[in-house]
C-alpha cells in the first residue's frame, strides 16, 4: 500500500495535499434521520473503517488491496459488512424510549481471522464478531441441501461432509451483550491495552468490564452526588491510556480532565491528576460554561499527550503538566460572538470529536458548513477544508477554505452568517498509519487521501 511503508506518518497539516478519494452515502437532499452517521472509527490496522448511524446500523468498509489491473483504486474502501447493531427499545419502568443511535464504535485488536468491535447506544454495549466465510460444508447426513431435516430412519449410509468454496460472505454476530449497567446515557467506551477489559462511561459513572463477562461490571468512577440537586458537572468522555492499562482519563462538562490510576483504589473518584485551564474572566458570557464543556478527549498514540475538544477550541495537554494545555488551537473562534444564536438553535450543544494522526504530529476536528480543520503541530499551521459534493471529483485536491470574520469579504471566502449550521462535521477519523482520513458529513462519509499516498 503506497505510503504505508513510510516509517513516520507524514504530517497532515499543510505539508500534503488532501485529495478527494471517495464518498459513501446517498446524495438526496432529504436526509433520513436514521442515515445520519453518528460515529466513525478505523480499526487498528486501518484496513477496516466502521461507521454507526442513528438508525442503529453499523457499516464496515474494507480497504481494497492494491491491484495492478486497477492502479487508480489506491486502497479504496468498499462495503464489507452491514448489520443492525441496536434496535430501539423501551424502558417500561421509566417510560423512556432508548434510542438505537450508535454512540461509539471501538475495535478490538485483531487476534485471529475474525474482527471484533464494540458498539454502544445509550444503554447497551455489544461485542460483535465479524468473520468471513468462504467455504461451505456439503453432504450432511441429517439434513439435505435445502436444510430440511432428514428422517434418521431413512439413512442407510453415512458420508463425511466436504468443504466447498463459496462466495465470500461476511457475517456479523453478536457475541456479548453488556446491558443494564448504566442508568444514564453512555457517551464513551474504550478498550484497554490489556485487550481483556474495557470501560464504558455515562453521565455520572464509569464502569469497567471484562470482555468475557456480561453479567457483572465494576464501577470505577461515580460522581453522582447524594443529592441530585447538587449536581454541577457530568462526565462527557473517557478513554484508557494506550499503553498503561491502569490509567484512564475522563473529561467533564466543566472543562476539566481527570486522570485516574486504578491501582490507587477500587473506586477512582479521587483523581491522580487534574487538568484544567484557568478561565479567562474577560471572556465571560452567559454561555461560558457551555462552551467550556469538553466533548471529546483522546490520548495521543504515544500516550504522552492527550487532546480535548471543547466548543470553540482543541487543546493538547502534556500528561505531565496539569496547569495548562501545551497547545490551544482555535477551531472557529468567529462563533464566539454568535453564541446566543447558537444556543437558540441548539448548535452550541453539538459534540465535536477530534483525532490524532498516526504520528501525533497533526490533529483534526470538525466544524460547521461541512468544514473540518487540521492543525499541524510541528509547523504550527492549520487548514480548513470542506467535505462537499462539489469538490468530489476523483483525486481532486481540496482547496483550503477561509471564513471571513468581518470587514470586506474576499473572493472565495465565506462569511460567518452564510455558514450552514445544519451541515456539521462531528465525527472524523484518521487512519492509524497512512494519510487517509474519514469525515462524516451528516449522512455521507467522505474519504480523503493525500496525493503522495
Amino acid at each position, binding site marked *: 500500500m503506497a505510503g504505508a511503508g513510510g516509517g513516520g506518518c507524514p504530517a497532515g497539516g499543510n505539508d500534503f495535499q488532501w485529495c478527494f478519494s471517495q464518498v459513501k452515502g446517498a446524495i438526496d437532499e432529504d436526509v433520513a434521520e436514521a442515515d445520519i452517521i453518528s460515529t466513525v472509527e478505523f480499526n487498528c490496522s486501518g484496513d477496516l473503517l466502521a461507521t454507526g448511524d442513528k438508525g442503529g446500523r453499523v457499516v464496515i468498509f474494507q480497504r481494497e488491496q492494491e491491484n495492478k489491473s486497477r492502479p487508480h483504486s489506491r486502497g479504496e474502501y468498499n462495503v464489507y459488512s452491514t448489520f443492525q447493531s441496536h434496535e430501539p427499545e423501551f*424502558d417500561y419502568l*421509566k417510560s*423512556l*424510549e*432508548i*434510542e438505537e*443511535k450508535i454512540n461509539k464504535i471501538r475495535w478490538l485488536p485483531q487476534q485471529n481471522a475474525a474482527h471484533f468491535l464494540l458498539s454502544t447506544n*445509550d444503554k447497551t454495549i455489544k461485542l460483535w464478531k465479524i468473520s468471513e466465510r468462504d467455504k461451505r460444508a456439503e453432504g450432511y447426513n441429517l439434513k439435505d441441501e435445502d436444510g430440511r431435516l432428514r428422517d434418521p430412519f431413512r439413512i442407510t449410509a453415512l458420508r463425511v461432509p466436504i468443504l466447498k468454496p463459496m462466495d465470500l460472505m461476511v457475517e456479523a454476530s453478536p457475541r456479548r451483550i453488556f446491558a443494564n449497567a448504566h*442508568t*444514564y*446515557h453512555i*457517551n464513551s467506551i474504550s478498550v484497554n491495552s490489556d485487550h481483556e477489559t474495557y470501560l464504558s462511561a455515562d*453521565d*455520572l459513572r464509569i464502569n469497567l468490564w471484562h470482555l468475557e463477562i456480561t453479567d457483572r461490571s465494576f464501577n470505577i468512577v461515580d460522581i453522582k*452526588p447524594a*443529592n*441530585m*440537586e*447538587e*449536581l*454541577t*458537572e*457530568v462526565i*462527557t468522555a473517557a478513554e484508557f491510556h494506550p499503553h498503561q492499562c491502569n490509567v484512564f482519563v475522563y473529561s467533564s*462538562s466543566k472543562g476539566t480532565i481527570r486522570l485516574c490510576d486504578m491501582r490507587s483504589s477500587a473506586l477512582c473518584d479521587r483523581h491522580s491528576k487534574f487538568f484544567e485551564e*484557568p*478561565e479567562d*474572566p*474577560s*471572556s*465571560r*458570557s*452567559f*454561555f*461560558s*460554561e*457551555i462552551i467550556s*464543556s469538553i466533548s471529546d478527549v483522546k490520548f495521543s498514540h504515544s500516550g504522552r499527550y492527550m487532546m480535548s475538544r471543547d466548543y470553540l477550541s482543541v487543546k493538547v495537554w502534556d500528561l505531565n503538566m496539569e496547569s495548562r494545555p501545551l497547545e490551544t488551537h482555535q477551531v472557529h473562534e468567529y462563533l*464566539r*460572538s*454568535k*453564541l*446566543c*444564536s*447558537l*444556543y*437558540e*438553535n*441548539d448548535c452550541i*450543544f453539538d459534540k465535536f470529536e477530534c483525532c490524532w494522526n498516526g504520528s501525533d504530529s497533526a490533529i483534526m476536528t470538525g466544524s460547521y458548513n461541512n468544514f473540518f480543520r487540521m492543525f499541524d503541530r510541528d509547523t504550527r499551521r492549520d487548514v480548513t477544508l470542506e467535505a462537499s459534493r462539489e469538490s468530489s471529483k476523483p483525486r481532486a485536491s481540496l482547496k483550503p477554505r477561509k471564513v471571513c470574520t468581518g470587514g470586506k469579504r474576499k473572493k472565495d471566502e465565506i462569511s460567518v*452568517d452564510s455558514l450552514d*449550521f445544519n451541515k456539521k462535521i462531528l465525527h472524523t477519523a484518521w487512519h492509524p498509519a497512512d494519510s487517509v482520513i474519514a469525515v462524516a458529513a451528516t449522512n455521507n462519509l467522505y474519504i480523503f487521501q493525500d496525493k503522495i499516498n
Partner: protein
Amino acid sequence: MEFKLEAHRIVSISLGKIYNSRVQRGGIKLHKNLLVSLVLRSARQVYLSDPCPGLYLAGPAGTPAPPPQQPGEPAAGPPAGWGEPPPPAARASWPETEPQPERSAVSEAPRVGDAVPAATVTGVGDVPQGGEADAAEAAWNRVDGPRQAAAGEAEDPAGGWGVFPLGSRAARRPCGCPLGGQDPPGTPAATPRAACCCAPRPAEDEPPAPPAVCPRKRGAAGVGGGPASCPAPGSTPLKKPRRNLEQPASGGEDDDAEEMETGNVANLISIFGSSFSGLLRKSPGGGREEEEGEESGPEAAEPGQICCDKPVLRDMNPWSTAIVAF
C-alpha cells in the same frame, strides 16, 4: 437595560428547551439540561439584577431594589473567580465592571426554573383553569415582596457573578441578533410564562389577590422577548409584547414551542401552580419522581456561595426540588 432584555430572552429560551426535552426521544439528556440550567441561572441573575425601573411599570412594588446601592458600596477589587465563593466585598466590586449593580435576585429565578419542571412532572394535561389562574396571577404580585427583601440584603449568590456583567455585555451585544435574523417564536410568549412562573409558590402560602397584574406581567415579560432582540428603547417595548402575543408565531421553533407560546398565559401559570403545590408538600430532597435520569438544580449546589435571606432560601429549595423531580 439591554442586558435585562437579553437575559429575559435567554431565560425564556432556556425554559423552552427544558420543556421540550421532556418529549425528546431517548429520554431527558442530563448533560444538556444541566448546561441549560446553568445558562438559566446566569440569565436569571442578570435579569433580576439589572435595575430597569421602566420594566416594572405599574408594579405594586415599583423597582425591585434601589439603584443607589451601588454608589455607596466600597470597591473591593476584581471579584472572585467565576463560581468561587465570593468574599462579601466581591459584590461591591461589581459596580466597577458594570454600571448597574448585580442584585442578587435569586428569589425570582428559582421559581422560574421550578415552574417548568414542575409542570412537566404533572403533565401538561393537568391544566387547571379559572380559580387557580387567579391564584397564580395573584401570587405573581407577591414576587416583588421577597425580591425586594432579597434585594435589600447583602446577597451574594453563586459568587463570582460579579465578573459576569462585563463579559456578558460583550457577549450579548453581538449576539443580540440571532444568526437567522429572527427571534424564535417561543420567545415572546415564553417570557410571560417565565415571569409568571414566579407566581405559583407564593400562591401556596397566600390567599389569592386580585389579578390586576396581568398587563404589567405581559409588559415586563414581553419586553425581553420581542423582536427587539437588540436592546429596545425604553418606552416602546411596553407595546411590543402585546402585539407579539397577538401575532401568530413566526416559523423557526417546532410545534411544541409554538404550543407553549400561544397558550393561555393563565393556563400556564396554573399548570405550574398546581404542579408546584404538589412538590411543595413533598420533602425537599424527594421530588415527585426519584428517577435516575433527573435534572438537578445547580442553584442550590453551592451552599457556600449563597448568602440569602430566608424567603429566598425558601424559594430556592422548591425550585431545586422541582428540577430534580423533572
